[in-house]
């Protein structure tokens, strides 16, 4: 059977349409969006209760006093649930979609009724529209129209159209043929036959169709929430994806109230507009007779007066409300510039999105946030409909999206990481601690691993790597469902204390809520942890360099993130921003640090604020750490530090010549002896901030029997005769070759491979993963000691020499030029723990994010900044 590449054709067609017919989409987009904003500004503008009053008067006019009162009660309930704005968004969407649908469906239905051929050709099209799963055109809708109301509206129109067309056709066809013939027999023109006979008689059926259109539109608008259509759909969707059943139910109730209102009103409207309906209604009211009051319906004029009065009051309040415009302030960076943020309803996405919404609003930006599925989110950012999103899991989870849209996106760097993916069991599941333990236990778990959305990257990894690595294929079946279903299943199982194994990731709130056990992954099958990146549309940093810089510098620690997430969860659905505010209140100064107002400097200014400090460093970890730390501090104090990375030789010489002001990583007296001998007289030693250091050869601790340099002798074969060194220019390399090897008689047996610090570390990492023996040159302090389980080889001969101290060295006139800064530096000290954690923070943040990582670390050390750089 030849494979028909239908899917490929569709994709090609979509690509072509996307690139050639943009103008069509722009027009459609403008029309739909314009209509929506118009309606939305009317419905969403007024005071909720007044608007509810207007809707209630309409209900009273159409159906009577009691329905009017009930309508008011229902709408007031929506308001009290805090869902009014969303409900009005939804109502606007429904009205716009329904109007467009009816305008299109009526003529189509009439046409189909008049021509069998049209009817026959229309039928399969309607079938497709009605049954094709909405997601299939919802997502291309996003590709064509961008995230927002238009794709949602379009999907709604497509979905709601068939009953409108069908019922119109049916209604007209149902009109008694003899009546049409009678009209013809009296010489009626075809147009009048349609307008005076067929349509009036078909009206009850057509109105039933309109009713269906509106109800379907409402149900579809909820689904459209996934494509950023907003309104109640978004609320329902985000509540469900976070397993907040109560909130979902509240939104659901609001949807139902709207549905009932719209259903009853269109039903009554059908009665009102159709002559037959009027006849039937008149008969009923003639029969009822009693309980007049309950059946009182205001006359049209009374209803109009009521609506107008309420509308005027609402309009008046609205004008008054918009009178007190916000005064501009010194922190108004955005000047009303609009920034759209999209997010996936994962906790860290929601948390950071609302955090940035609050930060940006405090800085004078207008923001709107949209909750979306990853697909629409990425395409929305790629198209430029959204400015950025903060929840890009790279390189694995969102790989597919990144591959597709990466070229249209700007990576603003990672703000959190590494994350981890894992299989997780409740901790009451005894005996299962590692993935390897799962083998043979399939029965216990019903042979099932509860997965998330099949499209998620981690599902691919699970199926293709993890199961294989532990031989779980065949025994376990990965059930792909959705994140919310997975969490529901987890919740259910925990309630029943049933064994269950689910796919989960860190950070995740489930770890806080339930007592769970991450299954260890000794084989490393899940791969390395990921980083959560902030991703912006192409050109964002050019359009808004300030905000882009904030986002680039953005970092959160796990503690901060969980704190923020908890604050948001406490505040509750719909009040995310309040949660952010209360969290920010507990973290004073954070706003200025996360979003510093350019030029003003955060917090207290130093005496020499505004001075430029040229700082040089060479790429050693402690140099990077301390230099970036001071860069942050100096900026906070109003200085303008510049950083330059140089090799030690050029750095010392430029300091001596006064081209550089200061460097913080002078290892004395040994390592940098040569430079000090040469330039010492032209430099100013600002003292030491750390010490003593040590140099050493190091092996992984699984290398048994090697504890001292002396033990290396005769073991050359084990290590391939190699000692992995660093840069040949480094002082320790000289010491190693000239002293250490000699002292222990290792010359000839071992060759010192000089490479670079990073190659050395890569080799160390590789060897540890393979559990191969390796010996490397290393020094303390170094973050590698924190990351790996290493063994420093003892140096009984003292061949490495005494430990050194790390000094700060300035140009000759440094203290005169920077009296304040030099004073701070002379008192600068870091403990080993401080330095190690700072280095780890920077290492985790990855290259390019050093400043932000240092910032994050600094922020996590309360009071440190004022201690290091006191301002009187």
């Amino acid at each position: 059977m030849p494979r028909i590449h239908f899917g490929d054709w569709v994709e090609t067609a979509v690509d072509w349409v996307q690139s050639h017919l943009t103008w069509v989409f722009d027009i459609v987009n403008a029309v739909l969006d314009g209509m929506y904003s118009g309606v939305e500004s009317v419905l969403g503008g007024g005071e909720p209760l007044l608007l509810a009053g207007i809707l209630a008067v309409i209900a009273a006019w159409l159906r009577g006093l009691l329905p009017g009162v009930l309508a008011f009660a229902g709408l007031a309930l929506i308001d009290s649930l805090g869902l009014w704005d969303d409900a009005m968004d939804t109502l606007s969407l429904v009205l716009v979609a329904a109007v467009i649908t009816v305008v299109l469906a009526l003529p189509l239905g009439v046409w189909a009724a008049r021509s069998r051929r049209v009817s026959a050709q229309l039928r399969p099209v309607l079938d497709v529209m009605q049954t094709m799963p909405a997601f299939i055109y919802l997502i291309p809708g996003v590709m064509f129209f961008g995230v927002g109301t238009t794709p949602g509206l379009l999907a709604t129109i497509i979905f709601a159209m068939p009953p409108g067309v069908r019922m119109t056709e049916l209604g007209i066809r149902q009109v008694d043929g003899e009546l049409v013939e009678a009209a013809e027999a009296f010489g009626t023109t075809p147009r009048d036959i349609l307008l005076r006979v067929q349509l009036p008689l078909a009206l009850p059926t057509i109105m039933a169709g309109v009713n269906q259109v509106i109800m379907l539109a409402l149900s579809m608008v909820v689904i459209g929430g996934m494509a950023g259509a907003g309104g109640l759909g978004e609320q329902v969707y985000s509540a469900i994806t976070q397993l907040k059943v109560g909130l979902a139910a509240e939104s659901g109730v609001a949807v139902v109230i709207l549905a009932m209102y719209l259903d009853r009103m269109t039903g009554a409207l059908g009665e009102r507009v159709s002559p037959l309906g009027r006849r039937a209604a008149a008969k009923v009211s003639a029969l009822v007779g009693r309980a007049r009051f309950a059946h009182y319906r205001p006359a049209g004029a009374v209803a109009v007066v009521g609506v107008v009065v309420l509308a005027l009051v609402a309009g008046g309040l609205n004008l008054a409300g918009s009178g007190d415009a916000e005064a501009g302030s010194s922190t108004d960076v955005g000047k009303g510039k609009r920034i759209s943020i999209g997010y996936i309803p994962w906790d860290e996405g929601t948390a950071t999105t609302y955090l940035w919404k609050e930060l940006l609003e405090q800085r004078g930006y207008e923001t709107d946030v949209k909750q979306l599925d990853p697909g629409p989110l990425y395409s929305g950012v790629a198209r430029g409909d959204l400015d950025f999103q903060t929840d890009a899991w790279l390189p694995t989870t969102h790989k597919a999206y990144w591959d597709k849209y990466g070229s249209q996106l700007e990576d603003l760097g990672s703000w959190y990481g590494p994350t981890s993916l894992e299989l997780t069991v409740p901790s009451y599941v005894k005996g299962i601690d590692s993935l390897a333990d799962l083998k043979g236990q399939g029965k216990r778990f019903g042979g099932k691993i509860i997965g998330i959305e099949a499209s998620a990257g981690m599902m691919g990894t699970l199926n293709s790597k993890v199961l294989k690595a532990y031989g779980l294929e065949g025994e376990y079946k990965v059930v792909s469902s959705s994140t919310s279903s997975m969490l529901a299943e987890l919740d259910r199982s925990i309630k029943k204390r049933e064994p269950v194994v689910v796919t989960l990731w860190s950070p995740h709130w489930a770890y806080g809520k339930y007592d769970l056990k991450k299954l260890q992954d000794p084989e490393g099958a899940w791969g390395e942890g990921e980083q959560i990146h902030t991703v912006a549309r192409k050109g964002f940093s050019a359009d808004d360099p300030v905000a882009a810089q904030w986002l680039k510098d953005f970092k959160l620690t796990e503690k901060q993130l969980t704190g923020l997430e908890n604050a948001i969860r406490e505040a509750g659905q719909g009040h995310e921003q309040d949660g952010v505010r209360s969290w920010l209140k507990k973290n004073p100064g954070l706003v200025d640090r996360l979003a510093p107002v350019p030029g003003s400097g955060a917090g207290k200014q130093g005496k020499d604020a505004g001075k430029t400090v040229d700082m040089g460093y060479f790429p050693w970890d402690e140099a990077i750490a301390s230099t970036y730390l001071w860069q942050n501090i100096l900026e906070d104090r109003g200085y303008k530090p510049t950083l330059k990375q140089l090799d030690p030789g050029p750095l010392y010489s430029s300091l001596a010549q006064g081209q550089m002001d200061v460097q913080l990583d002078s290892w004395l007296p040994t390592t940098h002896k040569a430079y000090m001998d040469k330039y010492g007289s032209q430099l100013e030693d600002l003292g030491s901030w750390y010490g003593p250091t040590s140099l050493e050869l190091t092996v992984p601790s699984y290398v048994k029997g090697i504890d001292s340099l002396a033990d290396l002798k005769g073991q050359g074969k084990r290590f391939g005769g190699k000692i992995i060194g660093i840069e040949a220019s480094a002082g320790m390399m000289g010491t190693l070759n000239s002293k250490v090897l000699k002292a222990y008689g290792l010359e000839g047996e071992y060759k010192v491979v000089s490479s670079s610090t990073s190659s050395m570390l890569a080799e160390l990492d590789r060897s540890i993963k393979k559990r191969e023996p390796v010996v490397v040159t290393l020094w303390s302090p170094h973050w590698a000691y924190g990351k790996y389980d290493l063994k420093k080889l003892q140096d009984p001969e003292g061949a490495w020499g005494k430990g050194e101290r790390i000094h700060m060295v300035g140009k000759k006139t440094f203290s005169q030029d920077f009296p304040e800064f030099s004073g701070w530096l002379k008192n600068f000290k870091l403990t080993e723990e401080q330095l190690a954690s700072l280095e780890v923070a920077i290492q985790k943040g990855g290259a390019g994010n050093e400043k932000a990582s240092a910032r994050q670390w600094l922020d996590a050390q309360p009071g440190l900044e004022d201690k290091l750089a006191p301002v009187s």
Partner: protein
Amino acid sequence: MSPRLETEHLYKVFGRRPDDAVERLRQGAGREELRAGGTTAAVIDASFQVEPGEIFVVMGLSGSGKSTLLRMLNGLSEPTAGHVRFDGQDLTSLPDPALRELRSRKISMVFQHFALFPHRSVRDNAAYGLYVQGVPRAERDRRADEALALCGLAGWEKSWPDELSGGMQQRVGLARALATDADLLLMDESFSALDPLIRRDMQDQLLELQKSLKKTIVFITHDLNEAMRLGDRIAMMRDGRIVQVGTAQEILVHPADDYVASFTKDVDRSRVLTAAAVMDTEVRGDEADCDCETATPHTPFTELCAISARVAHPVAVVDRDDTLVGVVPRHRLVGFLGDEQGDPTPCRPRGGKVAAGA
């Protein structure tokens, strides 16, 4: 006087290639033959004339093509071949707007199931034709009310069609047709859906109205009694063809074929026949010389029997000039009732064969 309505070799064929089918029908092909080919011949070679003021009834069973024939008379259905002339004007050549104009002013129609517009009041229904003509509201309401009054529905103007009984609804249908003052009324089985008593009332009312209005009416029915009661002339249709056109008596007395004859069997002859059909025009005696009661050729059969019972000799039938045109011996009356037209035979002695009816 020229006929108000005239049809000339009218054909209506449904299905593919209707012109070929007409050609084959002209060459003598039968209806069944065509049906095998997927075409249906509804009306075949219909030619007749309707005089002004005449009630012309087309009688036939369902499927005989009578309704199709009727719809060709006002252009609702276009003939496949042949011509329809109304007041000398050929309808088949008229463009649609002119045809609509004609229908709205000159030809109106009454339907089997009334076809009243449920979303219009009784008055608005009756006024519908005038509304189509564009008559101003006040005038059309007045004329509609007049037409309703004529049909005995005064006072019901503001009611709705679904509040009326079937008979009343059809009176509205009739009023609607009369309100336009059309010359030609097409009535499509208009009384068939009514129960027998109401149907009789309606027939009486139609005849009553016709006395004063003198419309030209083409009336379709499948009920021969109704046809005989209403029709000045009757066209008998069978399988799309008109097999006989004539007055009720002609059809009753001289059916064109067995098919027609089989219909006439069920007819209550005493209600249809008149002296003219029964009288013996050849017997000439002194019957009219006495001062006894006489009959006219139009005297209905039942009355003739009554007269015959009162006079001792055959009843003399005289025309308007008191000239004797025929006599009706009593045995003829009995013979006509029994459909026995021969003279009585003399008695035969007992023991011989008894003559049974032929």
